[in-house]
């Protein structure tokens, strides 16, 4: 014990015995400081970088969309122009879990001609709530920040609407026999331009 305290008093020494003596004073110049900083940064940075690499993995992942799905039969749609909401049934992957045949989203379908169907995404372009059909008003209403849309999905009050753009139309609609197939896509929210979300 005495040993430690006596040696600690005058000469600073290192456990490895490399005796850092005050005689080296002049050499503690810029180079030494820079080296120390770089070494320290490298020591701290290594685990951080290794972690960050996997942290950034989500950027490589894509939303699952862009395929055609069978949504409904022609018969299921009423003859008037009331829109009906239909689920898109497909496989949904949540990280490592694969859910077979579950609803992955919904679309509004509306008949505009005997064999002509219009499809609108239920996802609000504002912040992604699900828009509902408001039968009383004869249009659509988003429950989260009350954006109103007409039957074609146009904003009722473009100046004042919380939504930056009209409802997103799904342009890939195909009639195969008596079945309605829709190309399901999601779009980036909160911006005026309709950009497919990836």
């Amino acid at each position: 014990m005495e040993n430690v305290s006596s040696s600690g008093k005058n000469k600073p020494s290192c456990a490895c015995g490399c005796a850092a003596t005050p005689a080296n004073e002049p050499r503690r110049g810029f180079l030494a400081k820079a080296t120390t900083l770089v070494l320290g940064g490298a020591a701290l940075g290594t685990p951080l970088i290794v972690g960050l690499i996997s942290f950034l993995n989500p950027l490589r992942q894509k939303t699952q969309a862009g395929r055609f799905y069978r949504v409904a039969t022609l018969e299921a749609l009423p003859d008037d122009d009331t829109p009906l909401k239909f689920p898109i049934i497909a496989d949904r992957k949540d990280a490592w879990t694969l859910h077979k045949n579950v609803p992955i989203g919904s679309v509004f379908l509306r008949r505009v001609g005997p064999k002509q169907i219009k499809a609108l995404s239920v996802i609000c372009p504002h912040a992604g709530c699900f828009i509902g059909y408001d039968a009383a008003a004869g249009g659509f209403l988003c429950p989260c920040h009350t954006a109103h849309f007409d039957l074609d999905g146009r904003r009722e009050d473009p100046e004042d609407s919380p939504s930056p753009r009209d409802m997103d139309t799904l342009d890939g609609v195909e009639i195969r026999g008596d079945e309605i197939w829709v190309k399901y896509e999601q779009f980036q929210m909160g911006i005026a331009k309709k950009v497919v979300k990836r």
Partner: protein
Amino acid sequence: MKALCSWIESRTGLCGWLAACGAARVPGRVCLCRSLPFVLGFAFVFQAITGIFLLMRYCPSAASAWESVYWLQYEVQGGWLLRAVHHYCGQAVLVLVGVQFVVMILRGAYRAPREFVFWCVLLLGIVTLGLLLTGDLLAWDENSRSATLTRVNFLQSLPEVGGALFKLAAAGPEFGSLTLSQFTTLHALLLPAAFLVLLVLRWWFARRATTVEAAEAPAGSPYWPRQVAANLVGCLVFLTVVFALALAHGTTGDGRGVALGSPANPAEFYEAARPEWAFMGLYGMSEFKVFGGGGTVVHIFIAPSIMLCLFLLMPFTGRFKIGHVLNIVLVVVLLVGDVYLSYKIYARDDSDPLHQAAIRQSQLAAARIPVLIRHHGGIPPEGPLALLRNDPKTQGPALFKRHCATCHDWVGGAADDIKAEESSAPNLFAFGSREKIAGLLDPKQIAGDEYFGNTAFKRGKMVDFVREMFSDMEPEDLEDRNLLVMALSAEAKLPAQKVIDQKDAEQIAEGRELIVDYCTDCHQFGKSGRLGTAPELTGYASREWTVGIIANPADPRFYGKNNDRMQAYAESDDETKNLMTNREIEVLTDWLRGDWYEPEGSGQ
């Protein structure tokens, strides 16, 4: 003893440090109001302890987050209390930090030499908001998922980087398991660590500031023991408030503590989703467009950032008298504005029938789920939603609204009545019951709106028959009709009529013979009569019969060629071609017939 003391002191310096602490003085008099920082430290320890115990029972993944919270809330002894105190203490921490922040500004204590103390408190407030936001998601119930998803979605509105930021925040392209584990890490590790660092720094800076101030104005009162006692009283008051809130909903029943909503459904969006109270002002600000047509980016990102910058600069602007006054005005305006906007939102939601309906529906589901889980004996691996999907009580109304309420009413004078968009078919309330059938055999009612009034059968044979048979009745005819009603209704085997059906077994047997006499000219009943002219009466309104008529009303067994407008919901053997799945029809049928599980003693 002395030797021991000096040995410890020489190695650690602890004794000197303790002595210094004991000799510390508070400026001015000992006061409860000075205990705020201490109480905040205590609250952190409280959250750390309760949080660790919660974390031991929590599984952050989409398939088990809600389930593990359910387990805590309903099965673990005292689990509900643990959740509740952790929840309310979190809210109280925000209030504490807020009060400290405002008091510092009002008192001018954010200026030199306390700038760093002030910044620490400001950052503590932000970290607390982060803790509330991340903690909210973890329960993974309808509201927590939807409300958080909306807020994270706002990131997408940032130009260029939005999409990438969203993916990073959600730890994937969609909200899911990884979002939960990331939020758990933030909530239980990173943010608390930041909170702790800020607490220590705050304490450190405050001590330095006190020393600087004490040099100018010495004296004051000793810290030990009176101020310490005052601090502990502060802690007790704090604890009392937290426990009072946690126990406000009682200590028994499913709703005690903090209610757990029904589990998040990734395919749906909760219509009444709202942020917690702490964010309501911000929500109101963007909702009422305080800054005009600037849109989301302005209201959610730019305006709050500007406010934050103003706060950060306060110690400098406050050096001037006018700046100090402006700072006070700013804080008061923001506080009043926050309260006002929050109030406006609550008032708007309160008077919005759609919003209230969504809440009611969600509460019904949330109350129903524990019942179903107990009945099932546990949660199946497919998750609690699978139980809910097969539950007639909660799913029936939704299916009815979707498929039947275009034409049919379901109206019995209760709050949950379902009105048809355009009532053009019989009211299906109390389907198959004695009252319902009695009305059908009543000449005054059968052609009314409740029955065939709006259908092609208004001028049909059945209406003629009922008018002819039962218009001017002798007393014994009346009795006959009564027996007919009992017998026909007994065919339905409704759970609600089980007792009276058993009691009236004799009359029912008589009634069955009358059915053969009266009805089998057109209807088939047992071996009498034949199919093709009118619906079969064997098993009328029974489960099997009802499933059949929904599947295909134009089947010869039902209306055949006379079918009036009703769609066939499951005509084909290929389920994907049908309007409803077989399972859905069964659930709807069970609901129409009032046939679902209720725990004993629930009054149903």
